[in-house]
């Protein structure tokens, strides 16, 4: 959003409307993220419990922002806890988070005209939920994205910290393990409106079922490859 100003530095009425709209979209994004964060609470507590059990809790906690991905974070700490060494942990973490390339590339068209600083800020806070939420937004999608992403970027470390204190007993309930997947699955399902997207999702689901025994990183990379291929084929027949 760019604004002009009169010689006295006061915004024009049009500029004020732009600013109000931007704030509206920011708030809408943050509000849309709240129920997703609520569903993420048990998973955050699980991650917090793993941080508390780590042999280096300070570094493990810093991963909340450094890695900024619950699945990769948990996978890295689990591998290290099993004594498999830092190299294996890095390989697993990198594979699990490789999907971020797809998210960032998918965002690119909508952010081409954004200043470099905005693109960098959007990149730092990029993860599954804000990407999926903002994808369906047409109006004010950048401000909406920043609202959603900022809410999670600030809230996630707080939730994980809570997990460090109390996560052990809460995460013992088996149903808790379903919450992150249920949340993400719901957000993806709401976007199944175009044939290539449906083809990508369905083929990836089948691939995930067939590769359930493989490591998460490899399985998800296969899902991505099969999903893209199916999407391309479906588009040929559209």
């Amino acid at each position, binding site marked *: 959003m760019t604004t002009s100003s009169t010689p006295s530095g006061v915004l024009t009425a049009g500029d004020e409307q732009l600013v109000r709209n931007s704030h509206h979209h920011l708030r809408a994004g943050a509000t849309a993220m709240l129920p997703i964060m609520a569903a993420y609470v048990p998973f955050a507590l699980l991650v917090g419990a793993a941080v508390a059990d780590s042999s280096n809790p300070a570094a493990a906690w810093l991963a909340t922002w450094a890695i900024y991905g619950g699945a990769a974070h948990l996978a890295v700490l689990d591998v290290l806890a099993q004594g498999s060494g830092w190299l294996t942990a890095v390989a697993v973490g990198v594979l699990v988070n490789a999907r971020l390339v797809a998210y960032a590339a998918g965002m690119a068209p909508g952010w081409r005209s954004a200043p470099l600083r905005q693109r960098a800020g959007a990149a730092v806070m990029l993860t599954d939920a804000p990407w999926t939420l903002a994808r369906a937004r047409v109006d004010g999608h950048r401000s909406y994205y920043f609202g959603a992403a900022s809410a999670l970027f600030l809230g996630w470390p707080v939730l994980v910290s809570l997990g460090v204190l109390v996560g052990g007993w809460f995460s013992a309930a*088996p149903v808790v393990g379903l919450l992150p997947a249920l949340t993400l699955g719901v957000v993806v399902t709401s976007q199944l409106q175009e044939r290539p997207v449906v083809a990508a999702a369905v083929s990836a689901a089948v691939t995930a079922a067939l590769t359930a025994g493989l490591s998460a990183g490899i399985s998800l990379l296969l899902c991505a490859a099969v999903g893209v291929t199916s999407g391309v084929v479906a588009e040929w027949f559209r």
Partner: protein
Amino acid sequence: MSAEAQVGIAVFAVGAASLLFRLVPLLFAPRLPDRAAQQATWAGLAVLAGVTVRSVLNHHDQALVTGSVNLAPLVAAFAVGMGLSLAYRGRSVLVCVAVGIAGYVGISTVLLAL
């Protein structure tokens, strides 16, 4: 190498790689073709679909294991299916997740009572 140092190195390395994954496509956004971006979006949604399915199939609940039969993935599939069917009909995230969880708890309770 000490366990503490290994945690620090792993966190730093995965963090640096994750930041590059996020930054590079967006920093070079003006040069990225629309077609590549669209296919990247399909890849992203495919990954999320894969995460959902993997979580269901790898779901573990000791209470739902009877002998050699593990009913946990089946119950998880029903529960997640309930939530996703509501999502397809346009219900909010909270409602869908709440119904999914309630479904899991309800089905588990019935199975345990049998």
